[in-house]
């Protein structure tokens, strides 16, 4: 049998046991020099092995090593089937001492000893940015996650996140839709799609990037596993971007871990009155980089990587993003709308629609507020008239309504 394969089989076999983590296994490995020697040495009574294990008190590990001693070939064959079973489901396994194991992860305290993954592992030669943030994000957060996910992916940056709803999933979807790659680190087995609502993202990420987990296949998602998962999200990255986070939230924990790991941190600034931006603003105050636009991130990565746009679309995307529309673009948008407005002269319809678009924001605003703003632009509409105008915009895909709250899309 191929020696690397044999080593991997033995690593997978022992890693599957509860309590056999990186700390114990790396100690054993450093001492014995190979996986096989851990098993053989144990059978021979090599000094140190039994003592190290006993200290950690796992009878299961001892039982496993014993069963190898009784029939080494049979044991290896049996555990080979285990790995082959995973492979049949597209699940790969690698461990700390293999070349495939992500180098970035090796530099963090307490790395996972083994990694299961669907698809690929992040490319070592291209930059990795982890984008994280609140699950219950605001519209603003969602737009920012989209903007950064998309723009960075267009420059070949690999986007890592946790596939959660809100910021995580949004940035990853944006990266995929820009033709980029994204990697999802799960707090469950890689064959368990959590949250299930993100199934299409899960499937696409497996094909254009990967799904990673340190937990063995079949492990159910548990919130107690998420903090540990977050250290991997931070650990895989060259730079961590926080889009929206409350103070002392789960996101914030990830950031602390990233700081411990010596990762560079950027945060998207928010309004000081938004609870959802407390965390980000605090980070900036504490010295995090200001993610004022995707270019700021690219500049930070520039020193270490050569960046090339997948398409030349970057400048445009950035502009269209966070409320930096140019006049010409707005004009262009408006003529389309104005054409269909009936019973109005082209000029006045144009002006009204322009005022209407200016009155809308990315976050849903109640109609009462929109009415006030329009009135500020010199258009006094009745409630019903405004409702009709807004419905028109919705049908054109330029606005979205939730109850009497409307936002621009």
């Amino acid at each position, binding site marked *: 049998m191929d020696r690397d394969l044999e080593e991997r089989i033995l690593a997978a076999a022992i890693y599957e046991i509860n309590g056999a983590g990186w700390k114990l296994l790396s100690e054993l490995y450093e001492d014995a020099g190979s996986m096989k020697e851990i098993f053989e040495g144990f059978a021979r009574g090599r000094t140190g092995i039994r003592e190290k294990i006993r200290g950690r008190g796992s009878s299961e590990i001892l039982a496993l090593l014993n069963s190898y001693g009784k029939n080494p070939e049979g044991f290896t064959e049996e555990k080979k089937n285990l790995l082959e079973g995973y492979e049949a489901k597209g699940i790969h396994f690698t461990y700390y001492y293999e070349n495939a194991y992500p180098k970035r992860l090796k530099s963090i305290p307490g790395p996972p000893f083994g990694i299961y993954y669907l698809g690929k592992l992040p490319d070592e030669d291209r930059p990795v940015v982890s984008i994280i943030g609140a*699950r*219950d*994000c*605001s*519209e603003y957060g969602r737009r920012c996650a989209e903007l950064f996910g998309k723009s960075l992916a267009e420059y070949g940056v690999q986007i890592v996140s946790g596939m959660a*709803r809100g910021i995580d999933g949004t940035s990853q979807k944006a990266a995929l839709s820009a033709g980029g790659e994204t990697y999802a680190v799960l707090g469950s087995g890689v064959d368990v799609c959590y949250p299930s*609502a993100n199934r299409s993202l899960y499937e696409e990420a497996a094909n254009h990037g990967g799904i990673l987990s340190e937990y063995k296949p079949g492990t159910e998602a548990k919130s107690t596993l998420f903090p540990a998962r977050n250290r991997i999200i931070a650990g895989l990255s060259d730079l961590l971007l926080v889009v929206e986070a409350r103070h002392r939230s789960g996101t914030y924990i990830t950031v602390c871990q990233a700081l411990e790991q010596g990762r560079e941190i950027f945060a998207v600034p928010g309004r000081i*009155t*938004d*609870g*959802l931006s407390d965390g980000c603003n605090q980070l900036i105050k504490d010295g995090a980089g200001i993610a004022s636009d995707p270019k700021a991130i690219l500049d930070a990565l520039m020193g270490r990587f050569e960046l090339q746009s997948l398409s030349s679309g970057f400048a445009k995307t950035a502009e269209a993003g966070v409320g930096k529309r140019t006049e010409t673009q707005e004009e262009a948008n408006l003529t389309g709308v104005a054409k269909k407005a*009936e019973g109005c002269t082209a000029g006045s319809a144009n002006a009204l629609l322009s005022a209407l678009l200016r009155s809308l924001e990315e*976050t*849903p605003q*109640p*109609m*009462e*507020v929109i009415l*006030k703003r329009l009135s500020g632009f010199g258009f006094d509409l*009745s*409630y*019903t008239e405004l*409702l*009709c*105008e*807004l*419905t*028109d915009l*919705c*049908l*054109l*895909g330029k606005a979205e*309504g*939730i*109850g*009497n*709250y409307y936002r621009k899309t």
Partner: protein
Amino acid sequence: MYSVVLSSAPYGIESFLVRVEVDVSSGLPGFDMVGMPGGEVKEAKERVRVALKNIGIALPPQKITVNLSPANLRKKGTALDLPIAVGILAAMEEIEEEKLRGILFLGELGLNANLESVNGVLPSVILAKDKGLKKCIVPACNAKEGAVVDGVDVIGIENLKELIDYLKGEGNPGDFKALHISLKKLLKEESVKSEYDFADVKGQEGLKRGAEIAAAGFHHFMMIGPPGAGKTMIAKRIPSILPPLGERESLEVSKIYSISGLLSDERPIILKRPFCNPHHTITEQALSGGGNHPKPGVISLSHRGVLFLDEAAHFSKAAIEILRQPMEDKKIEVSRTYGTFIYPADFMLVLATNPCPCGYYPDRNKCRCSPAEIKRYMSKLSGPIMDRIDISVTAQSMKLKELEGGGPPSEDSASIRRRISLAREIQKKRFRGKEIDFNAQMNAKEVEEYCILEPAAKTYMQRAYEALGLSARGYHKILKVARTIADLDGKEIIDNRHLAEAIGLRIREDIYG
């Protein structure tokens, strides 16, 4: 000796005629009652015996038998005390039976022989009229209730002694003058005053407009918004913009309240459209009616008016489910071992709910609820009830209301009601000879027949259908609401503006469905 006295007992919201037969003959002294008396009726004999004793009339040491005919229907309530007492007096030949002809007696007796109020006087007087009786004798405090019925003299009495004098032709006849009240006049007076008026509501244009359209087309209506946004304030005022009660409707509603014992000397008849606002902890039975002593539930007390469920998402699923049948049939059937009762229940449903557990969605600066939490919160309302609600409006939060300040005074209910009445006239003409009265009640075929769109509006609707991912049901609701908006606008053909507003008032099936 033998005598017969006429009375009545309630069944559902109607009363049926009861012949109280009394026989007093020699035999071992006793007092027997037959003919399916209910629990309260069985107790009548003690009240009657003591009351008679206390006005100085001792029951003879003879065998007294009372039969309540028809014997196959259960008689409930305490109104048979008086006819039983009168029957005994006639059988004892204290009063002439001749004097009792053509009179319907109702009343509960106190031990001191005073007459206490009873439920169901109004339906009984209506029954008397139908049966060609000319006079009803009832407790004085119930007299006004019956006095609105034309063609029957309703005489209120305070005490059994008084009644005996009257029947004997003694005492002052002026004390026994029949009371007559003109319902028409009362209704007319009532229509000009209303306790709750839209003039008091500043701002909230969206809710007001939604309520107007809903009231015009009899669409069920939902208000979504944070606590304290004035949803209840709006709901309470919806009856004031509905057309005033007509005479027939007023009697219909009053009958329900009469049977339920909710009429009084101060409010002898219902002149306003009802507004019922049950708490979300209400039991299913209190909502639907029925029970061991069957009486109408809250949904029937809302008949011809507004049933308002505040914090609708907190009502039990079973309670919400109860609304389904009446919303379709405009009545509710309650089955009990001793019979099936049908109570009318034709109400406009107004729901108010928070959009999410915290109440602030879609204001994401305040609301941290996840999409799943929002869906779960609204899911109790989904299905059968949401299907029947055509219009939903989001209420603005209190803070925003401050923005309103000043501005022109709000329109009063009377002006809104005028527009609604016109729109309802149009519908009346449209649906003449049909089984429905209002736009909201149109079925798919009727929608196709009556919701005629301008050519441009057809394209517009097509685009909406595609852009908004509407369901067939959602599509029909929009057309029905647009029909009502066009009616309010006095237009026969529906145009883009009508559609656009109707679309803006739809329920977002993707969020709240």
